[in-house]
């Protein structure tokens, strides 16, 4: 039922088709991949009435220009990229109808506006029905390292044509579309306006670090370095994190958000394209409901860690579920089913 929907007119490297990732393949050493800002994708899918795990485009380098090939609907979430549809501004966190022939253009976050409400790095483009590429090992996410999934296992390039799944576009009650309260506003966290705050559950080796390291980890701001990508974020601070007793570790499975500390003492946070296993000691792990905050952190931005436990993490997951449920209700009110339209 899918048909060509978008043509890529221009894109830098490193933009790709992603969904919520590829679970259940760890026995082959295949990690999650998927949209780093998974919440942005879930919001886009909620607004368009898509399945929660429908694939979209992860855009992390700009400018990007796309041509719409047939009438349909899109949602733009994640980083505010001063999007323009045929030159007219499209607000961030917005779903709207599009017509064949229209051109969508996205600029680097902050390039045209300095007053961004939140740190911004990666945008997500969702389309009604979801981007349709073949499923590989249960997912449409691009696995660049293994060259499978997504569009031919690679990043997008000019000339690519992307199919979308929906045969019939949803009809909007208001032709201008409708928007979502951004997560940074709906789910605020931390009281340092200069830094992004994420919640961390201490991990197995936490007790092995020195008291000074514990204090620095929780109290100091950590700066994101330019050595950061979809594999992980390297951080630097004023106090390197050291263990009281240094022992040779056993390799073990690791997850997105794990804060590993190599011997130099500068932490690395693992992201979606990272290895499935590692052997560095772990200070803690950023909770899943806060991974989207990491996804939007540009280099040189400051990060703060807030201690959290399993009960608080569960509450955060429920709060995020409530936020998404509200958006699905909003979508149901704002879209007409094709039969009713």
């Amino acid at each position, binding site marked *: 039922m899918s048909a060509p929907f978008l043509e890529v007119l221009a894109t830098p490297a490193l933009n790709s088709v992603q969904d919520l990732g590829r679970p259940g393949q760890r026995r*082959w050493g295949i990690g999650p991949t998927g949209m780093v800002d998974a919440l942005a994708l879930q919001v886009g899918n909620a607004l368009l009435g898509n399945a929660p795990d429908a694939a979209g485009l992860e855009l992390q380098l700009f400018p990007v220009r796309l041509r719409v090939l047939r009438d349909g609907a899109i949602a733009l979430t994640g980083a505010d990229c001063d999007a323009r549809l045929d030159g007219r501004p499209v607000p961030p966190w917005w779903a709207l109808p599009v017509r064949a022939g229209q051109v969508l253009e996205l600029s680097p976050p902050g390039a045209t506006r300095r007053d961004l409400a939140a740190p911004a790095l990666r945008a997500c483009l969702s389309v009604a029905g979801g981007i349709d590429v073949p499923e590989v090992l249960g997912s449409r996410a691009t696995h660049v390292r293994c060259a499978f999934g997504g569009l031919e296992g690679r990043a997008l390039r000019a000339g690519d044509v992307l199919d979308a799944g929906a045969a019939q576009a949803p009809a909007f009650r208001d032709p201008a579309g409708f928007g979502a309260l951004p997560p940074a506003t709906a789910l605020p966290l931390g009281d340092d306006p200069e830094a992004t705050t994420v919640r961390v559950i201490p991990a197995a080796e936490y007790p092995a670090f020195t008291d000074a390291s514990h204090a620095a980890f929780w109290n100091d701001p950590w700066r994101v370095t330019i050595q950061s990508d979809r594999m992980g974020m390297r951080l630097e601070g004023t106090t390197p994190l050291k263990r009281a007793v240094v022992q040779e570790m056993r390799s073990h499975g690791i997850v997105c958000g794990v804060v590993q500390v190599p011997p130099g003492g500068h932490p690395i946070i693992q992201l979606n394209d990272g290895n499935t296993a590692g052997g560095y000691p772990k200070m803690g792990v950023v909770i899943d409901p806060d991974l989207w905050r990491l996804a939007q952190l540009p280099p040189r931005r400051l990060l703060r860690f807030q201690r959290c436990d*399993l009960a608080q993490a569960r509450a955060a997951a429920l709060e995020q579920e409530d936020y998404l449920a509200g958006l699905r209700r909003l979508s149901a009110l704002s879209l007409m089913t094709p039969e009713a339209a």
Partner: protein
Amino acid sequence: MAATKTKAAHNVFELAAPRVTPMGSAACLLEGEGPMCLPTQRRIWAVGRAAGDLKGVTDTQPGMNNLLVLYDPLATEPEALQAQLLALWIATPDTPAPGKLIELVVRYGGDGGEDLEEVARKKSMTPRQVAEMHSSAEYTVFAPGVIPGFGYLFGLPEPLFLPRRDAPVNRPLLLNVFIAGLQCNVSGPPVPGGPQVGPTGWYSLGQLIDAPAPFDLTRDPPGLVEPGDRIRFILDEVLE
């Protein structure tokens, strides 16, 4: 949670009692007690199979005498799951596991074996002695995860023990045979055209000759090895 007294043999991490600790909000890590060994790993595999049936568990991944268990935090009680896993560990005996024997031919030293001489120097051995000792052992695939399709190997002879480097170095990825600690693995680009160089704290001893692709979606199963398989490295030549 159980006491976590550790002891140092080669200054390697070792637990006096098993433990389960959170790995964030949607996973936890079960770690077996005692020195790293095959019987413990067979229990890890057995617990991994059983844990897959527990409510809310979405995936499991064995490590080196440990098991990562991923779960949906809204479909289970994380604390209860941790307790269940510890109880499962204690109740699970050493269970024989099937596995196939795989022979891989290695050229030690030269390109892809950049660290052979350094390892020899650190061990007061010749490069050939290191290669012969490394290829004399039979290794067991303990865990997936170095690169797609390959895994972490147990069985490195004790005299070759070396801690990981303090700072990672860049090494070409040519299906190299690496060692670190008491572990061994094969690393490289999983697919043609993958990255040709990568940072690692491990020591590269050599390069596989005529090895099949570690991961190939057109093959069933796609991965070259699975936990429980045994690996023999055949010494092809030593470049000095």
